[in-house]
């Protein structure tokens, strides 16, 4: 049986591993708060496999949450996922964290918040230092359209974005800071949606062939950082792709 193995270490807390079988059986294992992602990943995957009574060889595809989120967490997830895809010789899929939140809020099965078949969703993640990663989409059973592409915003800017969304609207948030913001919005006409595992949402999206979970080339996959490194900000240098470019290996000499 071909399993989908989905990894999420994109946020500072609450990462998970999901194994999804073809018959819909699912093992969802959450990271322990006290252990780093790099330490626990394989114990989690092993636990998931054991719950399904499956073996490594049955993994047929790898999915990873590519961001935005915590830089270190994103890199551990992406590095692990691309290495697994390479070593298992299986296809790799990558999904945006904000897109997966939006899927959980109804865009997934086209169940929009209003009976006339249309609505919008605001997706929020903690970005540290009083900021949020935010994006908004309008959607119906037929289409999804970006109102605001994923970006890093101050909490005030998020409030301004929220006010632009029409009447049938949902808010979905993951993270301590944005949770309280989402609560406020819920008081102001937003229907709140709760999610726990981005990995499970992504595994399901991959199974459906959702366009928000495309297949990617392992050797070139990068996280979505949404922002410069601190060094670039401080020095006022934007190195762009220069950071990620392939630096051809040479023999040690």
């Amino acid at each position, binding site marked *: 049986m071909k399993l989908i193995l989905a990894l999420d270490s994109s946020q500072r807390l609450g990462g998970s591993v999901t194994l999804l079988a073809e018959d819909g059986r699912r093992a969802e294992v959450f990271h322990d708060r006290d252990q780093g992602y790099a330490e626990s990943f394989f114990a989690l995957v092993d636990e998931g496999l054991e719950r399904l009574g499956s073996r490594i060889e049955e993994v047929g595809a790898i999915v990873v949450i590519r961001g935005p989120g915590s830089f270190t967490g994103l890199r551990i997830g992406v590095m692990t996922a691309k290495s697994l895809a390479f070593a298992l010789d299986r296809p790799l899929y990558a999904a945006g964290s904000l897109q997966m939140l939006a899927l959980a809020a109804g865009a997934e099965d086209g169940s929009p918040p209003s009976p006339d078949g249309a609505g919008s969703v605001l997706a929020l993640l903690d970005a540290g230092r009083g900021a949020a990663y935010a994006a908004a989409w309008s959607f119906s059973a037929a289409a999804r359209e970006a109102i605001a592409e994923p970006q890093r915003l101050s909490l005030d800017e998020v409030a301004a974005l929220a006010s632009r969304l029409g009447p049938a609207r949902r808010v979905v948030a993951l993270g301590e800071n944005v949770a309280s913001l989402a609560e406020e919005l819920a008081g102001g006409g937003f229907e709140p949606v709760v999610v726990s595992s981005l990995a499970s949402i992504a595994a399901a999206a991959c199974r459906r062939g959702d366009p928000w979970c495309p297949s990617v080339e392992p050797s070139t996959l990068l996280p979505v950082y949404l922002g410069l490194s601190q060094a670039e900000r401080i020095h006022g240098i934007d190195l762009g792709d220069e950071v990620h470019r392939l630096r051809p290996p040479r023999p*040690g000499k």
Partner: protein
Amino acid sequence: MRVLGIESSCDETAVACVDDGGVRSNLISSQVDLHRHFGGVVPELASRAHLSNILPVLSAALEEAGWTLDEVEAVAATAGPGLIGAVLMGLSCAKSVAWARRLPFVGVHHIEGHILANDIERPMTLPALVLVVSGGHTQTVWMEAPGRYRVLGKTRDDAAGETLDKAAKLMGLGYPGGPLIEKLAAGGRAGAISLPVGLRRRGELDFSFSGLKTAVRLRLEAMGDEVSEADRADLARALQDAVIESLVLKTAAALDALGAGRVRGLYLAGGVARNAALRDAFESLAAARRLVFTPPPPAYCTDNAAMIAWAGRHRLLAGQRDSLQLGAFARRPLSSWS
């Protein structure tokens, strides 16, 4: 045993394949061009660059060895010390490959890698005293066998390589400074300028280089804006001589502290071990003490993965295995490792 080794503790992405016959491939992708913009290694950018480079370097290393993943029997990676986010990249890749292929995995202490670089081309003469001189470490290590180390003396402030790098920056030479100082020093006169050697007192095993760095700065200030090429060469020569004098003095002190008969071999490890004058000085020290000394191959002195794979191979052959829950560490003394 065929071992795949990965090194990503600083600004070099390196992967190597080794087997019982030696090194089959040893590839390095350097980020020096990236960090040059900032005058030193930027941890966040190092991590980002490792993430895009590890798999391509790994594929190239396998290809050069004439291996596929099917040939690999075990995986080793640097677990520290180093920049934690950078270490995590190589470590995560190595653990993934080990898990996916159900292969044994070991983490390697980067400094043990530097030391065992001496063992790659011929077995080391043990027990030995090893002087580790790299960008982040300067220490004398008593080595009984692979895996059995005791640190005798270490630097109380800057490492030797760091001192050369910082002084080179002050002199406007560029980065990394060690090789540039060596080149410039070749044209300088011995004794033209005198610089201090830290913690000179008898019996003191620790090193200190911060006074030397300050002395270089003061010298440069005294020379003013118009420094002649000859003066710069003399200064580079004085700096190199002072560093080497300190290294030899402390190595001799460590040998004295160990006492006669406890050591048969003398070794150099780390990037500064590429320095020809230091190698010559160790040649003389070894001869005076009747110790076996063979300088390490230059390719295995600065950061590389051959030394990591080789150190991993030693641990594996000794029956050691690490769990895939092994974490990365930024610092950890060599003696407490393994």
